[in-house]
């Protein structure tokens, strides 16, 4: 009757309180003390069970995340072009090419611009809006929902939608036309196209940052705010000297998440600008897919992947370091 055994232990667990728990512990120290009970599974049996439980998850992760990471590093030192099965070791020449490839360096610049400007905008706008909608009222719930909905949309659909709105004959230009302005090439000039990619990404992630910041604000103890008010601080002083230090770790945390996310921008770029005009909005992830798959330079694409992961790790560690410092400076959490 194995089922009843487990059902009973579930009940037992729920019912366990002081003396019972002590009894359970005593019982554990004296296994096999129960008449008619065959005892616990053997040590070897438990090992087998443990392996059976751990293995599928480890194999899934190792097989399609871990091994690919190792292969990526190996491929990055070869001249593999994907057509032939042949892969010749060519040392660091892919990396040397990468650092001399003006289109790749430009792609790094584009990715970093999108990530840094996007993160700053999301920190500032996210915090400002969170302060406005943090309360538990019905209206605030609706505001938060409206701000959040773009996050749920697929990024490639968002890209196509904004491409239709910002295109030369799109809705934005038809508004400008009605207002008597000349049409603007939102996606046709390099600077405006990059601004469009950045702002559309911010539009999509804004609700996420607001929700993160609201969670941070709700963790600030109300007594602190009351105390500061009683002491005669203005609302700005309360924000500057009480709220801000308390949620600094949340702001840093938001920065890390959106930086890491924006550094891998791909879907929005493909659908919104296709990397254009003339490669002006090609990001690192765009170059990896383009050079690796479309151009068949799998070795070179792998080297670019290694560099992207190194860059992501640097950004993450730098921000986590900042977060640690913020914590020493008196932040909670």
């Amino acid at each position, binding site marked *: 009757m194995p089922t009843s055994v487990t059902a009973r232990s579930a009940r037992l667990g729920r019912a366990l309180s002081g003396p019972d728990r002590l009894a359970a512990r005593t019982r554990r120290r004296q296994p096999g003390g129960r008449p008619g009970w065959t005892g616990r599974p053997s040590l070897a049996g438990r090992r087998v069970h443990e392996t059976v439980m751990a293995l599928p*998850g480890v194999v899934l992760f190792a097989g399609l995340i871990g091994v690919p990471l190792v292969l990526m590093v190996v491929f990055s030192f070869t001249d593999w072009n994907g057509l032939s099965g042949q892969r010749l070791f060519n040392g660091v020449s892919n990396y040397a090419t990468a650092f001399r490839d003006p289109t790749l360096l430009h792609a790094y610049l584009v990715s970093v611009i999108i990530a840094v400007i996007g993160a700053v905008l999301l920190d500032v706008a996210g915090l400002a809006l969170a302060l406005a909608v943090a309360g538990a009222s019905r209206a605030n719930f609706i505001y938060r929902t409206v701000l959040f909905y773009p996050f749920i949309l697929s990024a490639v659909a968002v890209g196509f939608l904004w491409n239709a709105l910002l295109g030369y004959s799109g809705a934005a230009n038809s508004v400008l036309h009605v207002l008597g302005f000349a049409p603007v090439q939102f996606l046709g000039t390099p600077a405006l196209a990059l601004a469009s990619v950045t702002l559309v990404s911010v539009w999509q992630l804004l609700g996420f940052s607001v929700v993160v910041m609201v969670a941070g604000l709700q963790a600030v103890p109300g007594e602190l705010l009351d105390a500061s008010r009683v002491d005669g601080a203005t609302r700005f002083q309360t924000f500057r000297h009480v709220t801000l230090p308390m949620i600094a770790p949340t702001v840093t945390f938001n920065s890390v998440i959106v930086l890491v996310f924006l550094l891998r921008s791909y879907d929005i770029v493909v659908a919104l600008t296709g990397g254009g005009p003339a490669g002006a909005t090609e990001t690192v992830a765009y170059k990896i897919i383009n050079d690796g798959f479309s151009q068949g330079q799998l070795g070179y694409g792998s080297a670019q992947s290694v560099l992207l992961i190194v860059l992501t790790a640097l950004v993450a560690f730098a921000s986590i370091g900042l977060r640690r410092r913020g914590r020493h400076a008196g932040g909670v959490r």
Partner: protein
Amino acid sequence: MTAWRSRLTRHAVLIVLCAAMLVPAYLLIVNAFKPQAAILGSPFSLDARELSLRYLQAALTNPSFSLARAYVVSALVALISVTLVIVCCGPLAYLIARRDSPLYKILFYFFVAGTFIPSQAILIPVVYILRTIHLMNSVPGLLLYEAALFSPMTVFLYVGYIRSVPRELDEAASVDGASLVRTYWQVLFPLLKPATVTVIILNAVFSWNDFVDPLTILGPTSNNHTVTSAIYEAIGQYNTNYTAVFPDVLLAVAPAVIFFLFMQRRFISGLLAGATKG
């Protein structure tokens, strides 16, 4: 008096801002029912005489990239990959949460580090591996990779949640002679329902919205497309046939939006749990 005025200002600003956030959604919905001339001439207009279901119908029955079929593929991929990741990673998370051995500690660090790996970066070797095991250009290959991509977040969520469940529960079960496998699935797993719901919601939405992985793994030549890869193939780059763009985009995002409206609180609290447990 001033408090009343500042509250009014706050609501006025927020309402204007929310309206601005909703403009793209309004244009998406309205223009999915309008002919090209009306979209170009007056994108904001809502004239009942212009509206037609024809364009949505055309998008659904597009012979080369059938969205109806893509819905089935996307739903299957989401369903099976989420099930797979729950079955594979839940028990592993249990061991990581309960065992003190350094092996599990190291494993946990690997999984945490995995959340920072961009999926595009390892796509080249993943394609190589899938080709080697003959799962390239196939739905099973895609859902295995999706499950692998979810595994770090799933382990992370489960470990955090299991640590909040009292040890006495599963210890009592093992005292009574239940095996580890049984203890996890019959005693612990029912108690992990909130974490499981979070895992399902987050992973289903991310799988539905994933783009470059299905596009690459299913391949352009195959008959199988997910919704995102189908609209990419159907719209293509620089497409200005807006009677195709708006209906395709609307059909691609509608299921996720409806799902979100029903599961909103759980989605957001789950997202925060996944993001802040670190």
